[in-house]
């Protein structure tokens, strides 16, 4: 009996190894385990086995069943894996076909810069504020220490609605409004549209500025330098350097122009910076004590610094945009490149 069982296992295993089709496997399964299957028949022979041999033969039968079943399972898995592989191979797609479903749009480069800058400034303790674009002469000029008929009015050509209402020529107009309502210490930034009566290949009559104002005790030019350094590094990259040059603005004293190392060539000189390695980007300075006084802040106790710069130019530098006309034409071919 034991020999028969062993022979059956051996024979079946050899047969199983020869199988080339999944249907043959079922045939063997029936042949072995079916109602009249070979192993079934052997099991039926248990009746005739003497009692003392029964456990031994029974165990052998179980062992045989288990080993054949395992073998069948292994072969079955092998076949299924092959079938699956074939199926997957057949389902192969051309991965270079265009994507579909999602078609993204894009943000305008100027508003992207505003997002970036306001995030930087808020993280540095600035609050973002806004003011009217159609502004009174008082806030745009007089409160910023630019009296009527003063020579410093010649620095900008403005659009007027009437004698006392102007399209703001600088976001600085917001400084005065904020100084009126805030108590030091405070830090504010103001992004927004500004207007000047000039239009040529490098000037748009409508453009965007970003204005900053800090009022506190003992604010210095060195503080201005460190704050602008951090800001410009976060905007243009960690290796950015800034440099001060003397200048004049009625609302700051001392007044400076701030040059920023060209992010395009890192100061080596390229077409963006006209070979100088530096970009003239910001106007800044210590808030003129007269401006503090006009707007109700005690200039003996408090001082401040202010800075302002063009967002159009900043966006153009950051995105290597060469033509200012692109900025307001809203051509999809241009905006698509902002993705």
């Amino acid at each position: 009996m034991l020999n028969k069982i062993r022979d059956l296992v051996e024979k079946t295993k050899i047969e199983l190894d020869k199988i080339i089709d999944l249907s043959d496997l079922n045939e063997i399964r029936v042949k072995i385990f079916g109602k009249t299957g070979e192993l079934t028949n052997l099991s039926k022979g248990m009746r005739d086995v003497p009692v003392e041999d029964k456990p031994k033969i029974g165990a052998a039968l179980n062992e045989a069943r288990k080993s054949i079943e395992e073998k069948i399972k292994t072969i079955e898995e092998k076949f299924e894996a092959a079938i699956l592989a074939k199926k997957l191979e057949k389902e192969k797609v051309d991965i270079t076909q265009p994507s579909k479903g999602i078609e993204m749009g894009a943000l305008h480069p100027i508003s992207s810069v505003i997002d970036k800058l306001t995030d930087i400034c808020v993280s540095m303790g600035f609050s973002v504020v806004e003011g009217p674009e159609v502004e009174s002469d008082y806030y745009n000029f007089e409160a910023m220490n630019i009296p009527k008929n003063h020579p410093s009015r010649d620095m900008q050509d403005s659009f007027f609605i009437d004698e006392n209402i102007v399209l703001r020529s600088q976001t600085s107009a917001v400084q005065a409004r904020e100084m009126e309502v805030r108590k030091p210490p405070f830090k504010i930034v103001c992004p927004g549209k500004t207007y000047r009566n000039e239009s040529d290949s490098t000037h748009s009559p409508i453009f965007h500025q970003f204005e900053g104002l800090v009022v506190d005790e003992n604010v210095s030019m060195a503080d201005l330098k460190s704050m602008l350094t951090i800001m410009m590094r976060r905007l243009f990259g960690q290796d950015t350097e800034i440099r001060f040059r003397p200048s004049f603005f009625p609302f700051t004293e001392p007044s400076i122009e701030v040059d920023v190392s060209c992010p395009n060539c890192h100061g080596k000189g390229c077409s963006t910076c006209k070979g100088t390695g530096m970009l003239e980007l910001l106007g800044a300075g210590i808030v003129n004590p007269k401006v503090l006084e006009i707007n109700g802040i005690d200039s003996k106790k408090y001082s401040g610094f202010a800075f302002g710069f063009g967002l159009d130019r900043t966006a153009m530098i950051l995105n290597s945009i060469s033509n200012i006309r692109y900025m307001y034409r809203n051509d999809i071919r241009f905006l698509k490149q902002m993705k």
Partner: protein
Amino acid sequence: MKISYNWLKDFVDINIAPQELAKKLTSAGMEVEEIIYQNEHLHDVVVGKILKIEKHPQADRLVVCQVDIGSEVTQIITAATNVFEGALVPVSLPGADLVNGIKIQKSKMRGVESCGMFCSGEELGIDENYFEGAGVNGILILPNDFKPGTPIDKALLLDDVILDVGITPNRADCMSIIGIAREVCALLNQKMKVVNYSYDIDIYAKDTVRNYVNVDVKTPNCFRYMAAAITDVKIERSPLWMRARLNAVGIKPINTMVDITNYVLIEMGQPLHAFDQENIGGSQIVVRQAKAGEKVEALNHSQYELNENIMVIADQNKPMVIAGVIGGPESGINDKTKICVLESAVFDLKSIRTTSRAIGVRTDSSARFEKGVNVANAELGIARALHLVSLLKCGKVVRGIIDIASKKNEARKIVGSIKKINQILGVEIPSSDMARILNNLGIETKVYGDNLECVVPPYREDIENNNDLAEEIIRLYGYDVYDKIDYTLFENAKITEGKHHPRLIMERAFRNALAEHGYYENISYTLVSLDSDAKMLLNNSDRLVKISNPISDDLACMRTSLMHSLLQNLNYNLSVGNKNIKIFECGRTYLSNGNGKLPQEKNMLGICVNNQNFDFFNLKAIVEDLLNKTSLNYIIERSNEAYLHPGISADIICDGVVVGSFGKIHPIVAKNYDVPQETFYAQLDDDFLASLPEKKIEVKSISKFPIVDRDLAIVVDEAVTTKELVDSIKSACGKLYYDVSLFDIYRSEQLGENKKSMAFNIKLSSIEKTLTDEEINQVMKKILKTLSYKHGAILR
């Protein structure tokens, strides 16, 4: 402003080259925009003496000249007819590169060698005003005392270097040679040379200025009026050195007296005016405001009608000069002038500015007055002019100067704080450096403890406080001290909380969502043409914010709607071949609140789409998605905005306020903007939406039992709306309601006219148990009953 390098050297020893000087001036805030070398095109041009003239053997019109050019005798062929043996002429030699583009080489003319060319005045870049003979049609014949071989730029005093300096409005005192010289002194650590203000005068003469002129100042706009008289005036060509100076800075030399006034204007920054005494009616000068309707003829040959805002210098009878701006031909100097009255005055800058703009005339004089001339400058200017009269021997100065001043401007004492200045600058500058810099600038400064005791000269009206001193000190100490400073991190400052702007935050969420949905953000000009409102079928014509000085008709008023911008952008994009346009803009619209008031500025979001397979409901989805980011409670009602299609448009309403509108644009608007009719537009009031409390999410509990769903198709009249049916379904479901959605609408002849079939998917769920079929069927029956009772629905 053009500054002559040679002229500067009258006042300060300059030991560095012009480029170097330009760099230093720029670094101190006097930006040198251009350096012009006067002799750029005069190299290889020398004085030559024609020794011999012979006929050209091959050409009748040419002559062959032997010319002494100092180092040698050279041969030059010319066609000029005004040359003669013994004449001194400018000779351009091989290598010369003249201002008119001619480059000189050795050449053969009809077989005879010519080693250069004789030059006319024009070829040297000068005219008759500058040098006698320079304007003739032919070769410039030079004076006999010129030496052959002398380089022509030296001989004609054309070897100056001109620096074009940008002067900031706070430094009116630098609109002069002497002003820039003061800066140069400070930069080079030099002392200013003494300026000669002395002139010859017969102190025993009884004749005084009063015998020639009297002055009456009748307007507060004249701060100071000084007048001197000069007899025995000789009106002639002024000497070459004076003409050279004026020519270098772009002023045409005319005659002695006129040149002296211009010389002082440039050198001292003091505008002067010279009158012919005989033409001053009644020998009386009256400084007054003009009377309305008075007229004056000006030197530019125009006649101006005056008014009370314009100040004039008049005689007994009539205005002679528009004060500080422009003189008249009658009262001015002419070739026959014998007695001259010289005016040195200071006027209110506001008055001159207004006048100059009102009559549209800007002169060298008005340019200085409107920036501000200090009262003390008038006496320096007149003294310097009288010095020049003596020097040129072109007249006798009469004893006495009339001086009427309503304003004084004297040196002021101010006290600065060293500590405070260093605090402003944030760097430690030694007090000795501070004092040195200020002293070099002409601000006499002594250090006492923490104090800087300064005597500020009259010409520095801009210096008043520590900030002003700090600027003077740092711009000359050098801003490069900051190059080494990295982070100070506000050693003294307090912490402030940074806050984003609530509307900008909301708009950022909108913009990002729209970009993710395939929309492109636009930023457009907020200035538009006056007809844009009508094109959009809007009616804000009485509320337009109009520009009084527009740059063009296209930019004449502020926009009243984003629609205009977006439809223009759509039109542009389609015209260049872009297709499937989905664009939006966040920006302001402007409506007037009446004259003299600031307008209403509203922040809006506009969306515009022209895309295949895009309809009203696609637009609605976008709008709903955006509104879902806010806490807005709203209903949607049919819109009656004129710019939208009356049947395919809706308003978003919150508590009776229209917060936005959307729909297909009206076909007339489409036509007006030349865009397709299938264009959709939406707008939202961002200010309103940003004023709402932040959206709060409150999660409701979820049933642990499964959702069941059933479909229901019914036939109703066309007039029945989806919302009515959905509301009824909801109420019929009661507590078991989970969701309902419309998934099909079907119309056919079989259904009949004005009928539609609508198919809903209804989802039910209970918090307590799994629903049985029976329970579900009961609900469905109830729904159908309600729909049929309320809306006449029939099961399909």
